[in-house]
């Protein structure tokens, strides 16, 4: 069976088995991607009759000149740059600590994992209270160390930071679990060998843990970058259907949402989706290129 040459008949049979999955993914994944790429090129388009009168790159020109879109790209990049590195570093640190704790480690793991299984809306409700300018925990703790209270959700200077903090907290749980798995997969023998070789705890961390965990770090950061570029639900829930005060939390996906659902500019929404696609592609390619040198499988 294993060495059998594929014949026309056997290939057809195989395709037949694949057909149900192919139909579903073609209909709901591949076709929407193609149609949104096409839609981004429609310049005269009636959504209700699905009639295209003209095509061109006018939508991209529009985005190029739209200050709102510039703001959305800027906010998204700030968000990604704020969330991903801190999430990766913080979850690695917490995973390392959890790995050291023998007592109640299961309890702590559960606690850190909870945000991952909790609905974003519920999380946002809780953080809404934490960020409350008068009664919130955040301002209360800041008051304890002598800092002035901040209008986290209504001051445009701080609302993006508020969103970043909440997103980091929400992302931690899953990444900690991934890092814990990675840490447990490192053979203890390497640490013994490194200790014999004269590496102190810090040197063992840099020369054994970091290189050995690099595949997980890579996975976590690629996953984090893609997820953060697509941020939407946290904003919608935290600012009650607004992109923050004075558009301070307007991201590309939020921009896309606005163009599609409130302004009915479907081709513009599709064009911004295409730009998001290429942005993510570009960043992921850079990460892949970097991983060639620094990730050790």
């Amino acid at each position, binding site marked *: 069976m294993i060495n059998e040459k594929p014949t026309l008949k056997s290939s057809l049979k195989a395709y037949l088995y694949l057909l149900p999955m192919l139909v579903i993914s073609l209909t709901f994944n591949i076709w929407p991607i193609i149609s949104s790429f096409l839609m981004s090129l429609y310049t005269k388009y009636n959504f209700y009759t699905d009639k295209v009168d003209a095509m061109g790159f006018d939508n991209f020109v529009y985005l190029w000149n739209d200050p709102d879109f510039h703001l959305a790209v800027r906010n998204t990049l700030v968000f990604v740059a704020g969330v991903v590195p801190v999430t990766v570093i913080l979850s690695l640190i917490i995973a390392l600590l959890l790995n050291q704790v023998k007592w109640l480690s299961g309890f702590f793991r559960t606690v850190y994992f909870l945000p991952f299984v909790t609905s974003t809306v519920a999380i946002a409700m809780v953080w809404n209270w934490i960020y409350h300018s008068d009664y919130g925990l955040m301002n209360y703790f800041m008051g304890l160390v002598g800092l002035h209270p901040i209008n986290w959700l209504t001051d445009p200077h701080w609302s993006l930071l508020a969103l970043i903090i909440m997103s980091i907290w929400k992302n931690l749980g899953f990444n900690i679990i991934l890092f814990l798995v990675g840490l447990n997969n490192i*053979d203890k*023998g*390497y640490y*013994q*060998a*490194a*200790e*014999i*070789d*004269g*590496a*102190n705890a810090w*040197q063992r961390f840099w*020369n*054994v843990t970091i*290189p*050995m965990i*690099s595949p997980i770090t890579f996975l976590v950061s690629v996953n984090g970058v893609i997820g953060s570029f697509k941020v939407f639900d946290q904003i919608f829930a935290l600012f009650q259907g607004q992109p923050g005060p004075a558009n301070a939390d307007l991201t590309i996906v939020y921009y896309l949402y606005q163009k599609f659902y409130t302004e009915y500019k479907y081709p513009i929404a599709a064009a911004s989706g295409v730009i998001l696609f290429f942005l993510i592609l570009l960043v992921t390619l850079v990460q892949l290129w970097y991983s060639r040198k620094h990730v*050790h499988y």
Partner: protein
Amino acid sequence: MKVTFKDVTLSYDGKKDTLKNLNFTIPDGALVSLLGPSGGGKTTTLNLISGLLPATSGHIYFGDEDVTKKDALARKVGMVFQNYSLYPHLTVRDNIAFPLKMQKVSKAERYKRAEELAKLVHVDDQLDKKPAGLSGGQQQRVAIARALAKSPSLLLLDEPLSNLDARLRIEMRQEIRRIQQETGVTTIFVTHDQDEALHISDHIMVLSFGSIQQFSTPAELYERPSNLFVAKFIGEPVINSVPADVLRADLVESVPASVLAQAHTVGIRSEAIVPFDNGQGMVAKIHATLQQSQKYGRESTAYLTYNGQQLLSTELAGLPASQTEGDFFLTKAGFFLFNEQGALIFGGEAHDK
């Protein structure tokens, strides 16, 4: 460097002693094997020397210095692990140079040293490869080079040959001997293979049940085992051990009565049962039936039955195949008597009175 253990005890759980009151001195510059069955405490002893495990009580000295409280980092020994534990993300060159990098030796200098060591262990043509690209024997050589990189006063090897195939194992044990003699470093070698230990060691320490059964030269271990366990553990085929009562009547002439009275077990090496008196001193003559004989290459074995006990001999190859019984002689060398506790009371040249 000389290594001394004084009343060292180790307990993993605080209840059961894995090692009990270990006392020994490993002389400077020697190659010493720790030999024994699995679970006998060999690797535990090695980890106590390396500092990876702290002793529960007792003292450990390197030379005259008490290192009991020092950890592996401070003891500065070199060690080769059973699965080598080469860093998979580093090249052979960087693996060998790693201990020097930890000492912050400059790059040029540590690479120079790595290349010298690679030459010593014959992997100088593999320097740019990663460990995954090497064969088992090459990984082993790299692991030895890495252990030697910081010029340790002690080289510890934890079952270094157990992951190699039979032929490579023989080659590598000669290599370890060669490298040890070239560098003169005191080497402690853990193995469960007596053949390995007997071939390369200056001294062998037999460990079992958490204590030292015997610590002596390979020849002495074989010719004068201090107890029944060592006699049974060392030697291939396994020594014949039969209850003393079976042979008591035959031994009256050659063994003092007071010794014979304490005898509980008789140990007879397979080569000590010969078909004729060769004039080198016999302890007994027995009339036994010859059961079966087999030949494997240059080895031949034959089973004799005497007083209902089966004895194995490797010296009966010359007898005609048709012979089914006859007189056989037990030579003085390779004949031992053990008392009820298993201690040697007769046999072995030095004990001969």
